[in-house]
């Protein structure tokens, strides 16, 4: 096994494989930076180029591109408040707030370092988990997957603010997101729902137009209202970047935990990076010491950058585990990559863990090397990138608006994409104006289709008996705990304050 591990590294370092990886990394760098251009779309566009390649070269090329898009996607999210990738939207909440305060360098430093650690942990999880993962994946059936979806939404909704009113709005936003997921043909009978008589909505709401409008349009409007640059204060230079690196080191345990969240969500089929980042964000919020500490999130807390940054990169390794080991793609990107396996003459499954083990480990090394290179290159240009936040708003706004509309249009190449972007831009603006949290809505939208499919299969297959399955019971208990935890923390904080007041008098 160790021999195959070393062989994998040697194979990636051969000049032709390494060159293809560098080309992939360069493409992934720009795909991540540009909003709307998704990693999975680019993966599909690159597939025809691998026909003549050896397996190691092909995966160095494809994974070199795909494993770094989340890293640079975080840069766009932090600097401009526009999600560079669907998987990097959660970085906006605190990262962009830091950029507004003139701490863009610190936010980027923290995000890139967390991304690197996340990618390394995800890659090592892939290396270690291959022999162990089978029972974990097979223990989860439809009822368990449905409950994981509910747990995710409950976690983010309950942590959406302080007090019962904020939680009410969190759950309301979550339900709204789940409802938006119902748009399009239903997965059971393919009957149309809420399509407003348009062909465009048959396939449901595209995640890219929704996310781009939902997060970027309110930011642009706010930038126009302020009439200044993104950064109200002068942009942090190198010291800020180093501070961000130190922040990640200081919160090393949070980085590891969020990386593991990302890896595990990557392993579970159908959930993917868009879910991983929000669950990691929720976990970061949940790790706050008390309600006052939790209030710092959403206002530029570096922990809100570290969590999603680590998770959206670590999920790459996790994503590959079921794809390589069982031929079960965990996400749309992995489904496309599965096509790549067949194009180069490989069959995912037991062979990848025996005869082609060196090829499997070459994937691990590609993820590691590609991320080290990308983070290194990003650090070189970080100060210049951070300076973008001090450009006058009047110059930046038309470019950002152009990016929003072109990015959104790439989803279906239809004007409907732009209408969806405008609608969600308006909705996002009003939600911000009236202090409704947006994260639960996004998670509801992402998980809605998955939740519906698993709910239907569970009910059709087991009736109501699925509610009594042991793992389901554990997940229900966890859901209740997640909802109750903010109240318990609030109660303990008040109790402590009361005792301190009594002690003082």
């Amino acid at each position: 096994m160790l021999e195959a591990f070393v062989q994998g590294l040697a194979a990636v370092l051969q000049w032709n494989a390494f060159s293809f990886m560098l080309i992939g990394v360069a493409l992934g760098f720009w795909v991540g930076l540009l909003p709307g251009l998704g990693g999975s779309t680019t993966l599909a566009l690159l597939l025809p180029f691998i026909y003549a390649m050896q397996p190691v070269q092909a995966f160095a090329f494809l994974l070199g591109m795909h494993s770094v898009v989340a890293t640079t996607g975080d840069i766009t999210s932090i600097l401009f408040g526009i999600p560079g990738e669907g998987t990097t939207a959660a970085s906006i909440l605190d990262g962009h707030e830091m950029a507004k305060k003139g701490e863009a360098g610190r936010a980027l430093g923290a995000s890139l370092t967390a991304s690197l650690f996340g990618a390394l942990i995800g890659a090592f999880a892939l290396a270690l988990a291959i022999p162990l993962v089978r029972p974990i994946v097979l223990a989860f059936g439809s009822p368990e997957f449905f409950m994981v979806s509910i747990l995710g939404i409950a976690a983010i909704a309950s942590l959406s603010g302080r007090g019962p009113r904020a939680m009410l709005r969190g759950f309301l936003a979550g339900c709204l997101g789940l409802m938006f997921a119902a748009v399009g043909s239903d997965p059971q009978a393919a009957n149309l729902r809420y399509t407003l008589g348009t062909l465009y909505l048959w396939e449901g709401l595209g995640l890219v137009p929704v996310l781009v409008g939902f997060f970027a349009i309110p930011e642009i409007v706010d930038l126009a209202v302020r009439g200044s640059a993104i950064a109200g204060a002068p942009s942090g230079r190198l010291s800020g970047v180093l501070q961000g690196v130190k922040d990640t080191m200081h919160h090393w345990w949070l980085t590891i935990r969020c990386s593991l969240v990302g890896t595990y969500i990557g392993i579970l089929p159908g959930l993917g990076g868009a879910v991983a980042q929000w669950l990691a964000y929720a976990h970061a919020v949940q790790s706050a010491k008390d309600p006052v500490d939790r209030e710092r999130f959403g206002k530029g807390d570096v922990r809100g950058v570290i969590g999603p940054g680590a998770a959206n990169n670590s999920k790459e390794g996790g994503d590959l585990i079921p794809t390589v080991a069982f031929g079960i793609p965990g996400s749309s990107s992995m489904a496309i990559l599965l096509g790549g396996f067949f194009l180069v003459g490989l069959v995912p499954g037991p062979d990848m863990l025996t005869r082609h083990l060196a090829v499997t480990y070459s994937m691990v090394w590609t993820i590691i090397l590609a991320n080290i290179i990308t983070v290194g290159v990003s650090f070189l240009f970080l100060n210049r990138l951070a300076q973008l936040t001090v450009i006058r708003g009047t110059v930046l706004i038309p470019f950002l608006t152009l990016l929003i509309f072109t990015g959104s249009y790439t989803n279906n190449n239809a004007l409907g994409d732009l209408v969806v972007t405008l609608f969600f831009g308006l909705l996002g603006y009003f939600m911000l104006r009236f202090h409704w949290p947006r994260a639960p809505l996004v998670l509801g939208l992402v998980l809605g289709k998955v939740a519906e499919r698993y709910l239907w299969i569970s009910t059709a297959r087991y009736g109501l008996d699925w509610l009594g399955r042991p793992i389901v019971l554990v997940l229900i208990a966890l859901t209740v705990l997640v909802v109750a935890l903010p109240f318990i923390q609030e109660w303990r904080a008040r109790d402590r304050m009361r005792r301190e007041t009594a002690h003082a008098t």
Partner: protein
Amino acid sequence: MRRNAQALFGLVILLAGIAAVVATRDWKIQTAMYPRVVGIPLVILAAIEVVLSLRGAPEGERQAVDTALSETLPPDVTARRTRVAFTWIVGFFLAIVLIGFPAAVPLFMLAYLRGQGRESWALSLVLAGVAWLAFELIFDRVLHLPFAEGLLLQILRR
């Protein structure tokens, strides 16, 4: 005023939720089950939100874990600038619909930089040119995205 606006926003969500649940009444169970399971709690929660908003119930710390809009300027200035910003965004969308992406991009850039940003003619022209060039190179030449022809051009061609 703010309380009314909040209640109105909640009311819109409530009515949309009711409409979504009512729409399921003639659907088969496999199609209707999920929207009902989600829609009914949505309606209940939205109704509570509307009632609390109308009663002016305290929002507690009222801050959601989310970014916040600037509240440093006077409300009338904020409202006016917000309307202007949305007008430009919707204006760009209408320009795309009417004259198509390739023509709308430089036109919008030039109009915004010169009209709203009060930038110099030279800078406005250079930046509009750069935006158009980047758009053409990336989205047209490299990605070959099929951009729809503008409505006006279609009408004129008839």
